[in-house]
C-alpha cells in the first residue's frame, strides 16, 4: 500500500492542497481568505486533473512527426475551461466583498454577524 502511495505522490499533493483550500474556506472568518480558499481549492482540482492526464515520458499534445507519446490532451482542455469559470467566480466574490466592506466597514464574517445582530 505504501508503495502505491509513493508512486502516486502527485495525486496526494494535489488532494492535500485541496484540503488546505477547503479548510481555509470553511474555518477562516476573513472573507478575502475565504475567496483565497476557493481559489486554492479550484487550483488543486486542476492540479489533480492535470496529474491524472500525465503519461510517462509524454510531450505536449501538439502533433509532430517523430514524437511517439503525448500526454492526455483532454484534462488540459477541461482546465482551460475551468480556469475561466474560476476567474468569473473570483471576480464576483470579490465584488461582493467590496460591497460588504462598504456596508459594514469590515471584511470579517464574525464581525459582520455581530453588527447585523445589533441592527435587529
Amino acid at each position, binding site marked *: 500500500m505504501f508503495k502505491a*502511495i509513493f508512486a*502516486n505522490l502527485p495525486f496526494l499533493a494535489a488532494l492535500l492542497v485541496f484540503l488546505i483550500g477547503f479548510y481555509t474556506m470553511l474555518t477562516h472568518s476573513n472573507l478575502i481568505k475565504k475567496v483565497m480558499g476557493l481559489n486554492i481549492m479550484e487550483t488543486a482540482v486542476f492540479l489533480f486533473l492535470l496529474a491524472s492526464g500525465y503519461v510517462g515520458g509524454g510531450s505536449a499534445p501538439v502533433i*509532430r512527426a517523430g514524437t511517439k507519446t503525448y500526454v*492526455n490532451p483532454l484534462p488540459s482542455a477541461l482546465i*482551460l475551461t475551468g480556469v*475561466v469559470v474560476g476567474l468569473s*467566480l473570483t*471576480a464576483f466574490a470579490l465584488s461582493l466583498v467590496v*460591497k460588504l466592506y*462598504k456596508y459594514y466597514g469590515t471584511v470579517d464574517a464574525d464581525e459582520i454577524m455581530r453588527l447585523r445582530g445589533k441592527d435587529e
Partner: protein
Amino acid sequence: MKKILAGVVFLLIGAVFVLMVAEMPAFGSPCPVDPGVSRYYLENALADTGAINSVSAIVLDYRSSDALGAVAVLFAGLTAVAATLIAHSRKEGR
C-alpha cells in the same frame, strides 16, 4: 473547540483521501479501463479538425460546447460584477 472539531473532520477526510490515492492508477500510466478516448483525440484530431494542437482541437471542435459555455460563464461573471457594483453604488446606509 470548533477548531479541534474541524481539525478532526479534516484529518478523517485526509485519511480517506490517502486510502483513495493508494488504489488510484499509477501516476504517469494511461487510464487502464478505457484509454480509447484520449488515444482517439491524439490519432484523429489532425484528420478531423485540421489543427495539430490537439488541446485546441478539443476545446474548439470536439468539445466546442465547453468553449461556448466558458464564454457564457465569463459574460455572466462580468454581468454579475457590474450588476452588483452598480446596484449598490448609492451612498446610503444598510
